[in-house]
């Protein structure tokens, strides 16, 4: 028997929080079979589940393994939903270039931020890890990105973040492309100093990114 839309959405959110890939796929399939709206499935189902997972992470109920398993469930549902999105819902999103600066190969934090940003509707281009500063700027120019998000876990690679900000300044791009930074050794005062915006963790990064593209906060 056909379940109603709200019920399916709630179940999808729950199956994401409960890290159940198979159930999420099953529910997403049932949802598209009913020809309900794809955009709502993401916003009010999958993303809502990921949101709750992020909240559980902030409350220290969930940790990184749990959050990654939730995101697996979310992405597997997304694969079913995506072909059913209307065209205009797929374009016009804010674009973010993300990566780990050169010299560091730790990218768990970056991956979490990426997951949360994608869930919240950003178009995220992931350069990966160990990335030279100039590459961030080049890619951001190429795709007309609004933001560059940089992560590092090592004190030794923080200079690379400063270099990205420096290159943007030299090319007179600081107004157009904002920089957000995060990771173990990074502090707000460091971010302020180099002309970037600081985010403490993945869920706060989403709020910061939303503010930065909306209100165009100045450093």
């Amino acid at each position: 028997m056909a379940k109603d839309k709200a019920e399916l959405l709630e179940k999808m959110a729950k199956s994401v929080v409960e890290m159940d890939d198979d159930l999420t796929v099953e529910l997403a399939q049932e949802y598209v079979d009913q020809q309900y709206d794809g955009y709502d499935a993401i916003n009010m189902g999958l993303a809502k589940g990921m949101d709750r997972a992020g909240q559980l992470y902030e409350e220290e109920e969930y940790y990184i393994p749990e959050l990654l398993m939730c995101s697996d469930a979310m992405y597997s549902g997304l694969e079913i939903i995506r072909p059913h999105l209307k065209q205009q819902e797929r374009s016009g999103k804010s674009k973010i270039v993300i990566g780990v600066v050169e010299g560091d190969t730790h990218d768990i934090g970056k991956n979490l931020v990426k997951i949360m940003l994608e869930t919240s509707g950003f178009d995220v281009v992931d350069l990966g890890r160990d990335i030279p500063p100039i590459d961030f700027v080049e890619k951001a120019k190429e795709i007309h990105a609004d933001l560059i998000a940089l992560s590092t876990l090592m004190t030794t690679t923080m200079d690379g973040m400063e270099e990205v900000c420096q290159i943007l300044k030299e090319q007179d791009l600081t107004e157009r492309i904002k920089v957000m930074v995060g990771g173990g050794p990074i502090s707000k005062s460091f971010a302020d100093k180099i002309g970037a915006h600081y985010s403490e963790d993945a869920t706060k990064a989403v709020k910061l990114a939303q503010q930065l593209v909306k209100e165009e906060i100045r450093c």
Partner: protein
Amino acid sequence: MLTPKERLSLALRGNAVDRPPCICPGGMMNMIVEDVMDLTGKSWPEAHTDALLMADLAAGVYENGGFENFGVPFCMTVEAEAMGAKVNMGTRINEPRVTAYPLQSVEEWNKLQPIDVNAGRAKIVTEAIALLKARNPDVPVIANLCGPVSLASSLIEPMIYYKELYKKADKAHEMMEFVTSNLIAFGKAQIQAGASVLAISDPSGTGEILGPRGFQNFAVPYLNKIIAAIREESEVGIIVHICGRLKNIYSGITALDSDAISFDSITNAKALSESVTNKAIMGNVSTFILEKGAPEKLALVARQCVENGVTILSPACGIGPKTALANIRAIVDAAKSMKNASLNQKTCIL
């Protein structure tokens, strides 16, 4: 007057000493800076693959008024490379790092090569330890191991690894057993070569990443297995370094059988020393202040650490190679001037 080796040995065991030792173990807890490269004429990346260069560079820190120990290697990629990971040796100022993993899933763990302690960089490290021991018997030589979770997540993409800890728990534990037995072999080889202290750093196996339950299940048992096996071999002092906030894993830290717990600047030394009472408390001078701060400020930070319950003074993490030697000297000199304060601290903590 105690030698640096005697002082560290006593402090690790919780005995009263004239003043806190000031050390930096090596391994993930890097102590090599450009100033020392300039003074010794030896530098990265060459020193990662040559025992003589490695020993000279490590000794250059102590011999120029720096930390009161020798410590090798200068990275945490020796074990992963020996087991099949591809490693980029980095540059003069960037540490070596893993660039390709040999495994796609924990299920494939039996594809891993065992560490051959008589080959490659494992052998270079043990040779460097022997050279350092001969160089100055009064200075403790600290051997280093990559922690078991960090090694496992250097052999497989960490995103996959962390998920499979739960999705494929049996296979994940099998892999952890194998990784642990290899760490034991390399640890023993370093002790046999002459190290008097072993430091195990597990930046990927933290309470912040795994949570208290994960830390208890996947970090503590394997760390303790290594510690027990090393103790069977020799009476060396053992340090465990865990990154990140420790407040949710005090009981896990207490359950570790190491002599000392070393920790990040983000963790409050006072709260830790009040909650973990069965270990020497080692830390936790911010590496950011160490690199960017002035020497006078560092002397204050060092004092603050000791006032908060630290009994072995050290940086909170590996230090950046651009850190000035003068700044390292500032915290070492601060430790040297501490005399009575440390004794008072001792009696209230231990």
